[in-house]
């Protein structure tokens, strides 16, 4: 199905010519969500999104169809997100997400604040993680995707997903421990 679509999008020879608008129509949601899985923040999302399509335009010729196009796009998103992550490290704190982006508008103010704080804490921990582990962790623990689906999307064996998830859990447990120790020290002063 996807291949049939991609045959229409790409030139018959399968080389450099690519109808980016058609790729956008088919894969925009995937790119948008994937960039968030890798931790690209709201203010950078549209620029990062465009960068992904610039890379697609430039590199589509090197795509060998050994995997689904989405797997390749996933890898492109990872590379782009890595750049934006470094940039975000420099600009940390310039943006706080809006409350109405985060939660159900029907929530009480207390719930909104609690959700906001919880997300800020989780984001800090996720930002400290390796990108590949982070993506697997987010897809499994937050989006509740089955590991087999994650493996197909990322383009790695199922065992690799399990090992990344295991490593991610260990990593985030350590980060949480550090955070709690820091909070305890501050509270003890």
């Amino acid at each position, binding site marked *: 199905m996807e291949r049939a679509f991609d045959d229409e999008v790409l030139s018959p020879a399968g080389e450099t010519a690519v109808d980016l608008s058609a*790729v956008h129509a088919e894969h925009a949601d995937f790119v948008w969500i994937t960039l968030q899985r890798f931790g690209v923040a709201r203010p950078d999302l549209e620029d990062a999104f465009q960068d992904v399509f610039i890379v697609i335009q430039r590199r589509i010729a090197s795509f060998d169809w050994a995997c689904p196009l989405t797997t390749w796009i996933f890898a492109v998103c990872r590379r782009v997100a890595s750049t934006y992550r470094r940039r975000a490290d420099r600009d940390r704190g310039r943006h706080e997400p809006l409350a109405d*982006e985060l*939660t159900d508008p029907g929530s009480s103010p207390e719930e909104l604040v609690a959700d906001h704080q919880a997300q800020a804490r*989780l984001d800090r921990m996720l930002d400290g993680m390796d990108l590949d582990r982070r993506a697997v962790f987010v897809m499994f623990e937050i989006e509740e995707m089955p590991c087999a689906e994650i493996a197909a999307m990322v383009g790695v064996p199922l065992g690799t997903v*399990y090992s990344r998830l295991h490593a991610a859990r260990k990593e985030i447990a350590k980060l949480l421990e550090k955070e709690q120790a820091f909070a305890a020290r501050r509270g003890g002063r």
Partner: protein
Amino acid sequence: MSDPVRWKQGGGDAPRGLDDLLRRAPLPRAMSAAERARTAARVAQVPAALGSGIAWAAWMKGIAVVAGLGVASLAAYSLDHDRHAAIVAPLQRLPADRLRAVDLAPPIPAVVTTPEVVNDPAAPTPPVIATAIARGQPRSLGHAAPLDSAAPATDADTLLREAELLEKARAGISRDPAASLRVLDAHREGFGDGQLTAERELLAIDALARQGRTAEARARGGAFLARFPKSPYADQVRRILGTNP
């Protein structure tokens, strides 16, 4: 092999407190209609931007070829007219003013051996877009489109103006759906059946429903589903109208 139990469902050795954080964590946010439109407009200009960059690279290559040929010609000329000195150190004896002349020489089409560079009408276009992309600056391709792609740029501009209106409507829809509806009416007047008609109708149906104008919302929703039965927004419209199976 079965998947491990998720931490937020009490699985494994979830550290204390983390299960709660995970339960509160929002899913990655879906694209709004306006974001979809804006990104579509920007993506539509990517090939032009890269084309301009390629043309610039080709142009620079042409200059390098001209300069190289110029230096070679001058070296040959020098060798021809100063054979004895050339045997020892030809380049050291090359007159400085000739070298400067080579540096300052404009690219002469007659000498260029890559005709596609000369004949490419996009070649002299300043590489504004490509440079911006290379530097990783925030994008503003809509303002830097090459002159020879005026028609697509106009389309993109229209799309951006449409998207801007819809973004305005979307941003205020929960606070003031009536005001959003006025913005959407302005879109309908200004663009009619524009490129974002489906997005506009979705927002309008939502705004009507939020105001409790259920009958109007249903009528407009029915029209939407009749006109765009396969739209990605069809399910959303059904949900708003409460008719989702």
